[in-house]
């Protein structure tokens, strides 16, 4: 039991950090540019697939550097040639553009690499158990993922709090219109922000690929959860995104690990009663419900605190 808690906590924090890596880029892009980048999870997926392909050609470690750069370049191109032209038609048009893009990217990926999961292996250097808790070996690769996430997190914090660029980004988080008025080359700033955000998503994909599944529907399964994180944490709030990521990461990991159900806790219902909604709910295990827990949290936060945990902005 204790083993379950420790392992799940480690995995949960790991998943949470991964979510934060993705949602922080999404939050900054949304706050600065008002664009909800539907294709953000697609960039994550591109990172994983590029990472896989580059690893096959030139090895994992060069791929770790090159793949995010490639994704970042794609992101910048999307901003420059796509979003900038759609900006005049409003935020909904921009959102729809990124939606179409996400759709197209998924199709292209499955066209080139197929629809089955890829054999994206953990690099040999890190393929050993880091430590053993009780009876389970905890892979070193996962610690590596955790380490990378923490380093990026700390770097983000430093950039935001201690550099001029960071100051601009912070201002844009709550007052996006002012950024333009302050005389900064808005076009270039946007392109850079979009590029960096996409590169971060790509990086998350490169390192998460070997540990989680690398498959052409990655983006479609992770995308909605990302949005839940954003709404749950509150728009435009990086601390909110951080807390929301950890909460959702931990809750989902624990849910998957737990195999309980109402039936296992309270005993089976009267077997003579036919199938009904009640029997379904009674017999479902927490693990089966795990995928929808984030959405239930979404409904909860909408009822209790519609602005999100730490949100101050309406839109």
């Amino acid at each position, binding site marked *: 039991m204790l083993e379950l808690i420790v392992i799940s906590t480690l995995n949960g924090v790991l998943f949470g950090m991964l979510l934060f890596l993705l949602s922080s880029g999404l939050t900054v892009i949304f706050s600065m540019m008002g664009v909800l980048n539907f294709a953000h999870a697609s960039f994550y997926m591109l990172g994983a697939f590029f990472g896989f392909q580059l690893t096959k050609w030139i090895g994992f470690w060069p791929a770790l550097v090159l793949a995010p750069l490639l994704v970042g370049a794609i992101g910048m191109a999307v901003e420059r040639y796509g979003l900038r032209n759609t900006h005049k038609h*409003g935020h909904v048009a921009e959102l729809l553009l990124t939606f179409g893009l996400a759709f197209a990217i998924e199709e292209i990926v499955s066209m080139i690499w197929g629809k089955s999961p890829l054999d994206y292996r953990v690099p040999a250097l890190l393929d050993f158990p880091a430590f053993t808790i009780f009876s389970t070996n905890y892979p070193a690769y996962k610690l590596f993922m955790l380490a990378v996430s923490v380093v990026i997190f700390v770097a983000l914090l430093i950039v935001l709090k201690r550099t001029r660029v960071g100051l601009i980004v912070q201002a844009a988080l709550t007052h996006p219109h002012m950024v333009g008025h302050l005389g900064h080359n808005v076009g270039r700033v946007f392109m850079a922000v979009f590029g960096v955000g996409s590169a971060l998503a790509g990086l998350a994909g490169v390192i998460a690929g070997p540990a989680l599944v690398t498959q052409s529907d990655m983006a479609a399964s992770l995308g909605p959860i990302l949005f839940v994180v954003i709404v749950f944490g509150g728009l435009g709030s990086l601390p909110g995104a951080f807390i929301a990521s950890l909460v959702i990461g931990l809750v989902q990991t624990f849910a998957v690990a737990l195999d309980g159900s109402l039936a296992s806790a309270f005993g089976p219902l009267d077997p003579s009663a036919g199938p009904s909604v009640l029997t379904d709910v009674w017999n479902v295990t927490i693990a089966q419900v795990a995928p929808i827990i984030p959405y239930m949290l979404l409904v909860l936060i*909408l009822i209790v605190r519609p602005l999100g945990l730490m949100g101050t902005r309406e839109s």
Partner: protein
Amino acid sequence: MNTATTSTSKAPAKPGGDGLRFYGVWLIGIAALIVLPMIFSSGGSLTSFSLIGIAIVFALSYNILLGQTGLLSFGHAVHYGLGGFAACHMMNAVVSHGWPIPLPFIPLFGGLGGLVFAMIIGWVMTKRAGTVFAMISLGIGELVASSSLILRSVFGGEAGITTDRTALPKMLGWSFGPQLQVYYLIAFWLVLSAIAMYALTRTPLGRISNAVRDNPERVQFIGYDPHVVRYLAFCFAGFFAGVAGGLTAINFEIANSALLGAIQSGLVLFSTFIGGTAFFFGPILGAILVTYLQLGLTNLTTAWQLYFGIIFIGIVMYAPGGIAGLLMMHRPLIRAGTLWTVIPSYLVAIVPTVALACGVILTIETVARYSGGEAINLFGIGFKPQSPVTWVVAAVLVVGGAFVARLTWLRIADAWDRASTVARDRGYLA
């Protein structure tokens, strides 16, 4: 939502000549629906028409949200799917309990299924608008789609719920076994729903929904609560989506969790947006086009979803008013008599644009069929995906086509400029 389109979605029933034309359009539509299966009577055509009819109702219901009230939803299929399940359960109940409810009433229960869910979840969902509403709709859509696999008793798990539409009490001697009878049932409900949804746009609620779309802040200062307006629009959209879902359940005699899924939500968004959200007939055009594309393309290529995505991106970037928007743009020119000045530039642009499209298609199909080696058949010429000749041709078509096409499009823009100026001088453009 601040777009540059300035048209309003109305064809007002002004007394006199305009009114005659307005009612005339509706009558022609109804007549066409009645006559269509007599002209194209093959089984395949009937199936297509049935699918298109359902798609039109679904798309029109979606436009109540998007075009009328400015609510972008990524989860509209939820009401559609729940309507389908409600209809299936109702049909099975009618048969097992022997109730005297013939099949034509069933779509109403589909509508109720969609409506009830919209009423329950709608109040919370419409608290926020814009991009946040879009995200929430995505989450709710996933929630319901995933829940449907858990609640097997209601949703039948992976297999879904099946039903037999011929087992209900007959009406007018029709058992609704043959597809022709199903088509007429769908056509009937299509006309009913379209009239109802159009009438809705002419009510106080309909007009205020437009105001909420344009400026929710200002709406408060004329005495309206935008939240209530959005909620009511949401409920209506849910009802009609449920009707479409009921029709689908009748058509296929099955309802499963795919009906509620993200792909279905994406498709209706495509249809409505490509058709054009600013005009009532936009979603009708979009539904027809997208359904035909879907039916046609799935046989031709495995990458059909990619083509959808590209078309969608193209429309978003270059014609956000959709096909309806593009067509209506020509109206002032037609009235001013200057349309013919623009036509030559269109004709010139056709060749390079088609060349560009062919190049893109060749490229995509080459990648898609690379491992399979199956030849690509374009205009009767067979291209082998692994041959470098194909790649060169594709590259030339794409690069050359794009270059020349851009030049011709600039000429179109020039011609439009001149024609519009003349139209403005003659008073046909504001």
